[in-house]
């Protein structure tokens, strides 16, 4: 029977089968790649379709599988929320799967492709299962399958030590997070149905339950900790910029693009669906951490010169922006302002989708660059726009979108977030009123810095002259990779210019979670105008901006080209300076210098310049510049923690100190003590 959940389940099964049977085609890897990635693309497409369908019609369906624990079988449920996230995940993994056909070809003969394929499929399947899960056990199982699969994918190029370190760090943080999540589910289950039966572990039971606020707080904090660890919220982000870059780029795209979103899903699910009622300060916590992550994330990103690491830090930033929306939604909900909550929530979710798209796109682009140049260090790139025109265009689209510039999608969601911020004066809470606009300003700062960062990225990677070795065989990537990136870019544009359709689509979602529709007002002025509250309040029409710019461009162009002056190609002028070499260009480090100067106090910066003296001090022979920017949180949080653990471990080692007499004494004393305890 064709219902959304069946389609979704089918796609999961299809993925699992594809993954587990990948070994059969081990011999013919070219075929293996084509078959498995086309199949996974198909599965992702099915999932997307079912997700869109679910959200559109507000369907809610359940399946109970006959597996799992005897008293706690696996519950599956596809409702608006999971449908939405399924769409997000499915859409990107569809693009990436197509992209991978070309990308993974590059590994044949160099790396174990089969392993990549197997875990790729498991990874996507895991993410789908997370969105489908409707009881704590199945959720955790899927969650950890996802984590484990991505762990092996991060370890893919395992001969490099830093990859292994990154993978390990990632896995440990993820697992600690999972433990916290498990605990929070435990708390909720205990409060909902008691531990006598397992029924408490189904989400339905939790939905029915009424939680006393202090226990609800415990549950929320645990869950938020767990999910934040997965989402890379500062200060739990340290694993992220290590792990995401070292994975193959199609995987990085999925990890940054959608895996982090499963954490967002978890937060929304737990707060808005399971706990439902909460005090405003929960939202304040989420909002604050969101702001911190956003601003710190983008600043750290600016300091990077490793392309993929930079993008990874931007994921931290964007997760922060998403959390801002969700935090606002929580605050508004706790103040019983459904309409505004809906606005903030939709802003957050919209940015979730947008970030999935453009971050996926950017990582695919980075992958294409990597694929062509075998280089991740931006300081060695430059001028790629001439070698890889298509990739350049798509990457540029990604840059514009992530920098929140109209008319692309990143702008819309941030614009909605701003609107949500501007509604804060209607809150009853005074201090919130005062602080909100500051948050808005920080968000603005984030956006501006992101723009700066991506000028740097695009300028350094694609423009100018090549800074590194001029290897001639850099070439444009093949059709499948281009297709993947193109579809992503088009989606970015579409989401940017036609926001109203998205908002109408998500009506069910906002209604089921916060009890208010946005479309009533948001699309009041017709599909053309996005008017979140009321037309006179604020309005935006991406498509008109887009077409308007195009039109103005066209008119001016035509006007000027009725009789155009000639164009001479000439040498670079550069104020008449002749001996210009590529090494005189600004590179990533120098581009970020002013901002590094301004915000330097946030980092651990080690910088020194060695000048080789020459006959005359004014003309040094050679100048060696060393710069190292490090993350303070590493030293604040992680170092002390590990140190403590190892200290305890040393103490525990004392038990086993080799002399049999001592062991006998242990046993003897244990006996004596127990006897005393018993007889007392």
């Amino acid at each position, binding site marked *: 029977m064709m219902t959304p959940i069946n389609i979704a389940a089918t796609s999961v099964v299809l993925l699992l089968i594809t993954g587990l049977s990948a070994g059969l085609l081990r011999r013919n890897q070219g075929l293996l790649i084509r078959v498995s990635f086309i199949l996974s693309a198909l599965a992702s497409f099915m999932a997307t379709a079912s997700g869109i369908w679910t959200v559109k019609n507000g369907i809610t369906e359940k399946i109970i599988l006959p*597996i*799992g*624990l*005897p008293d706690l079988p696996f519950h599956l449920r596809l409702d608006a929320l999971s449908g939405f996230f399924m769409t997000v995940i499915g859409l990107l993994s569809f693009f990436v799967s197509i992209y991978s056909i070309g990308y993974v070809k590059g590994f044949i003969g160099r790396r174990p492709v089969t392993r990549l394929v197997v875990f790729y499929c498991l990874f996507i399947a895991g993410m789908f299962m997370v969105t489908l899960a409707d009881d704590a*056990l199945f959720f*955790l*199982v899927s*969650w*950890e*399958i996802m984590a*484990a699969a991505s762990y092996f994918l991060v*370890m893919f190029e*395992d*001969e490099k030590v830093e990859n*292994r370190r990154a*993978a*390990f760090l990632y*896995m*440990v943080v993820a*697992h*600690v997070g999972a*433990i916290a999540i*498990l*605990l929070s589910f*435990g*708390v909720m*289950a*205990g409060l909902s149905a*008691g*531990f006598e039966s*397992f029924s408490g*572990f189904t989400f339905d039971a939790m939905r029915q339950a009424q939680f006393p606020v202090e226990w609800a707080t415990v549950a929320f904090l645990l869950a938020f900790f767990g999910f934040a660890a997965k989402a890379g919220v500062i200060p739990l982000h340290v694993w992220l910029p290590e792990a995401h870059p070292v994975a193959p780029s199609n995987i990085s795209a999925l990890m940054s693009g959608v895996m982090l979103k499963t954490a967002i899903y978890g937060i929304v699910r737990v707060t808005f669906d399971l706990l439902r009622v909460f005090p405003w300060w929960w939202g304040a916590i989420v909002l604050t951490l969101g702001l911190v992550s956003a601003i710190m994330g983008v600043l750290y990103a600016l300091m990077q010169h490793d392309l993929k690491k930079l993008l990874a830090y931007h994921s931290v930033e964007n997760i922060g922006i998403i959390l801002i929306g969700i935090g606002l939604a929580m605050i508004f909900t706790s103040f019983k302002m459904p309409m505004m909550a809906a606005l903030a929530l939709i802003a957050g979710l919209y940015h979730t989708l947008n970030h999935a798209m453009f971050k996926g796109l950017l990582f695919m682009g980075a992958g294409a660059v990597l694929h062509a140049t075998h280089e991740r260090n931006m300081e060695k790139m430059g001028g790629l726009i001439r070698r890889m025109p298509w990739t350049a265009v798509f990457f540029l689209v990604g840059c514009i979108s992530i920098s929140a510039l109209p008319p692309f999608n990143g702008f819309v969601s941030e614009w909605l977030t701003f609107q949500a911020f501007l509604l804060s004066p209607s809150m009853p809470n005074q201090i919130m009123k005062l602080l909100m606009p500051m948050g808005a300003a920080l968000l603005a700062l984030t956006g501006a810095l992101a723009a700066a960062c991506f000028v740097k990225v695009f300028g350094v990677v694609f423009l100018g002259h090549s800074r590194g070795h001029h290897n001639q065989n850099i070439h444009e990537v093949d059709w499948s990779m281009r297709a993947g990136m193109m579809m992503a870019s088009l989606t970015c544009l579409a989401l940017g210019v036609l926001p109203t359709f998205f908002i109408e689509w998500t009506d069910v979602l906002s209604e089921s979670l916060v009890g208010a529709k946005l479309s009533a007002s948001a699309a009041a002025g017709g599909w053309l105008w996005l008017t979140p509250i009321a037309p006179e309040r604020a309005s935006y029409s991406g498509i008109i901006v887009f077409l308007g710019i195009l039109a103005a461009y066209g008119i001016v162009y035509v006007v000027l080209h009725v009789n155009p002056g000639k164009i001479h190609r000439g040498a670079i002028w550069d104020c008449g300076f002749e001996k210009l070499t590529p090494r005189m260009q600004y590179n990533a480090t120098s581009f970020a210098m002013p901002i590094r100067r301004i915000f330097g106090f946030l980092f651990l910066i080690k910088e020194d310049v060695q000048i080789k003296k020459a006959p005359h001090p004014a003309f040094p022979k050679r100048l060696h510049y060393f710069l190292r920017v490090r993350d303070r949180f590493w030293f604040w949080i992680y170092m002390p923690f590990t140190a403590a*653990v*190892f200290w*305890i*471990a*040393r*103490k*525990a*080692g004392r*038990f*086993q100190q080799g002399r*049999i007499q*001592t*062991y*006998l004494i*242990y*046993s003897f004393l*244990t*006996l004596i003590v*127990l*006897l005393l305890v*018993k*007889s007392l």
Partner: protein
Amino acid sequence: MILLILLGVPLFAAGVLAFVGDRRLAPEVNITGSAATFAAGVALALQVYEQGPMTAGGNFFFVDAFNVYLAVLTSFVSMTTAIFSRRYMRREREHGRVGHVGMRFYHSMFQLFIFAMLLCLLTNNIGVLWIAMELATLSTVLLVSLYRTPTAIEAAWKYFILCGVGIAQALFGTVLLYFAAEKVLGEGGDALLWTNLSQVSDKLEPTVLSLAFVFLMVGYGTKVGLVPLHNWLPDAHSEGPTPISAVLSGLLLNIALYALVRCKTLVDGSTQSHRAGDIMMWFGIISIIVAAFSLLRQKDIKRMFSYSSIEHMGIATFAFGLGGPIATFGALLHMLVHSLAKSSIFFTVGHASQMHRTQEMDRIRGLIKGNPLVGWGFILGTMAIIGMPPFGIFTSEFLILTATMKDAPLMTPFFLLGLGVAFAAILRKVQFMVSGDAPSYQKPMKAAHLPVLVHMALVLLLGIYMPDFLNQWFHKAVEILK
């Protein structure tokens, strides 16, 4: 009848193997013997599954849901271990680490050991239970020192002395138990029969039983390897030949725990309090924490996994101490999946250390590249043992954790702390061993594939689907242990 076969086969095989010695067919005989044992075990299980608990040999033997599933497990793991040891021991022989006296000794003692364990499980007599336990210890002591290296001998000596002392205390406990029982059941052998004792447990003298339990706890606890009675375990499990480590970690600990739990139910029955349970919980939690932290600084691969055995036994003990249907169910499941996973890990570990001719983890590298099956078996087994879904251990730990949150919420953080640290500690080492390029000194070898595959398959299966008969069994067992 089946029961006698089940016990007779290993004993007979032990004799035969002592005679066969180091001939070419010895491993095959070994395998056949344990296969037959396994067959008998399954048959017995079916019988019990259909007809319910039964006694045999004039009340000398007693089979119920609790011990029959352990019996099947024991015979199964010993069979797979025998299969594994065929290739493994041949390799050791080639390396000249064991002479043919050693091989003769190894094979027959292996079977004798299995016999002792089965006797432990199936006997109805608490005294005989003790004797069999001692026998199991004695039959493995010399296997631990099989390699005659100084460390091996040291380990075996510690094993011998510490377990001897421990078990002696258990005997004192048994005497006290008998002392109390005889008041109720009159003198003679019947007073030590589990079947009778469990009937009248509420009439037994509480003061005596609680005194007895202390001795039994320390005694059998030593064999379970609970902190602070555990010190022999890492040495003994790491110095012996790997098949022995596999069965010691996988089976013998279970058996000791079985004995402990049997006694505990009696004591609970008489004292009508949760005293015994509390003691076990404390032992469990301490074992978990100490073992987890000790894991962090291990250098020897087998030693590390011995510590992880301590940790998991701690978990099971904790759960049994916790009591209640969910926890007991979880504990039973945990015993099952742990022994499957742990033994299969030891299989792969054995091959790994043979490929590198060392047990030092720093020198073991690139297993996946060197031998995919060993590598993947190892890393997946590790994933299972550190409690990643979808493997069975996650399920059991999930159950136990649930029960903990219900009955002993304050213990939960420590429990989880232990699990978390153990996770990090083991993964940290293992991923470096499986990943990377194969080092120059790594020698390729033919690994015994079947055992690893079967074990991992079972662990995975139990993680996502629990067959109905197993479910019923566990529920029956839970009833028994209530």
